[in-house]
């Protein structure tokens, strides 16, 4: 039994829209998992539901045998961190203090950091290679730099699971690849389980260990080779204007 992630009969959605309908899914931990699906299928809602930020209607989400839905906010914050699409507008904050927000679940009522906190903040800074701007004001950073800092904040939270919602959305090509490679390293070197929602399916196929495909309120997991061999993408992306080329692993415009 090596399946550390267990989602069973999970349903979620809004008053007038079903996002997930009784979904069952199991995966191994310490993997880079890409969550793909068309706009509006509910990738963000799925991540929010699993992170406890959106109420689930039914079902459970077990990690290492713990039902994450049973945990209180502060206990969950020690197992799961998020990097959301929403940017934070905070005036007057240096990068190091921003990353320090990741230590909030562990600090006392006044938020005073001890040596462990400082150690983990510095470790997160070095993992993400952001030493050169760790003392700069967060608002002065470029989008690519900000995203590395956001990821460092999640790393400082020291959780086995990290969720990211479209982490490469506003980045240029180089930054996209570097962020994805950073995520990949985290799963192999830092024992993180990372689930990220993305539209960059071509990169996801190359880098991810597993792809979760969200389509018609159902969620299924595939390895990259299964995804290509079983021709899943042409079912998910059923459009006359685009086709997936199995041999190159890229989409082609018809």
């Amino acid at each position, binding site marked *: 039994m090596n399946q550390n992630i267990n989602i069973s009969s999970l349903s979620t959605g809004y008053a007038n829209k079903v996002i997930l309908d009784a979904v069952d899914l199991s995966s191994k931990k310490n993997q880079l998992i890409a969550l793909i699906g068309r706009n509006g299928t509910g990738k963000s809602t799925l991540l*929010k539901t699993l*992170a*406890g*930020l959106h109420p689930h209607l039914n079902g459970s989400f077990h990690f290492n045998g713990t039902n994450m839905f049973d945990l209180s*906010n*502060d*206990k*969950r*914050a*020690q197992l*799961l*961190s*998020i990097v*959301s699409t*929403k940017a*934070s*507008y*905070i*005036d*007057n*904050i240096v990068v190091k*203090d921003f990353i320090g*927000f*990741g230590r*909030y*679940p562990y*600090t006392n*009522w*006044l*938020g*005073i*950091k001890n040596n462990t906190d400082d150690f983990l903040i510095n470790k997160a800074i070095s993992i993400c290679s952001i030493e050169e701007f760790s003392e700069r004001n967060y608002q002065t950073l470029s989008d690519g730099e900000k995203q590395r800092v956001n990821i460092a904040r999640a790393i400082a*939270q020291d959780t086995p699971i990290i969720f990211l919602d479209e982490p490469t959305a506003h980045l240029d090509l180089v930054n996209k690849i570097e962020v994805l490679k950073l995520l990949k390293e985290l799963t192999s070197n830092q024992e993180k389980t990372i689930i990220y929602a993305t539209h960059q399916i071509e990169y996801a196929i190359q880098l991810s260990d597993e792809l979760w495909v969200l389509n018609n309120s159902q969620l299924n997991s595939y390895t990259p080779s299964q995804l290509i061999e079983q021709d899943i993408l042409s079912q998910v992306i059923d459009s006359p204007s685009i086709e997936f080329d199995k041999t190159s692993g890229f989409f082609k415009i018809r």
Partner: protein
Amino acid sequence: MLVFSAKALFLPTMPKLISNNISVSIALLCLIVLILFSLDLFFGPANIPFKEILKIIFSNDSVKESWSVIILESRLPKAISAILCGSALAVAGLKLQTLFKNPLAGPYILGVSSGAGLGVAIFVMGLSFIGISVQDISFLSNFGVVFASFLGSFLVLGILIAVVNRLKDIMTVLVLGVMIGSIVTALIGIIQYFSNDVQLKSFIMWTMGDLSSVTNTQLLTLTPIVIIALILSFLLSKQLNTYLMGEEYALSIGTNIKKSRILVISITAILAGSITAYCGPIGFIGIVVPHFARMLTQSYDHRLLIPISALIGISLLLVADIISQALQLPINSITSLIGIPFIIWIIFKNKKITNLN
């Protein structure tokens, strides 16, 4: 002496929070507060030598009986009211700006002060409809006014918080606050129309209230309320810091948003409400001071911003009181004259501020 005490207070518990520059700023602010407090006691129609003022306060003996009365019954309570009022409004404003993610939020502009007014109007005039006269029991009415203004402020904040998530633009929130303020004023007008002369008079007297109308007995109620609420505000610093990241992030790092939001709203309503109950509405201190505090400290951190805002708020209100004393103008006019140009400057400085979230 002040330098040492400020360092002794903050340094051992927060070694990394307070840099040298900031402890110097805190010490300087304490000194400024002390000087302004003395000036506030010194200035007035009666010319009392400073040495005599010290004698009256510390040994309670004086050359003239009338001097003693002026200092102890008028100038000292007024200066203490200025301290309470300045710190309470500044800290209330800071918390509202964080809570609503809005650099222009403040107790006055969001209608929180008007809400307090409605509470008092219902308490003073409305109770007579059901046959209770407030003047019968002065002790009860003292606490009653505070509690009524707290409920009024809490109600307005509750309404704003309930709708704020559906609004994407911070200007809309401000317009909503102004509209709530107008509705409340209209309601007060209706209550006034239906009240009898005695009730109306005691309410009008209340609305004309300012720092000088706070008596020594009332200070015995107001002082502990404000001090406790300020301490509680400081204790919520960590939660307030997490709000800065946005609601989702705050939840994801373990903040109990629902619980802490109710706490923040309650304490803010106590601060803004109790001050409005005793000193009447005093505008713009709550908006302006947190910006001064952020500029001075270059920090986001409420553990610093709360004490610094309190000190700046105290200084600004003491200055406003000294000016209003010298020019014989109501203090609310002075705070508006200081505050509004600054607010316009904030609007021009951050053109991006209409962006909520």
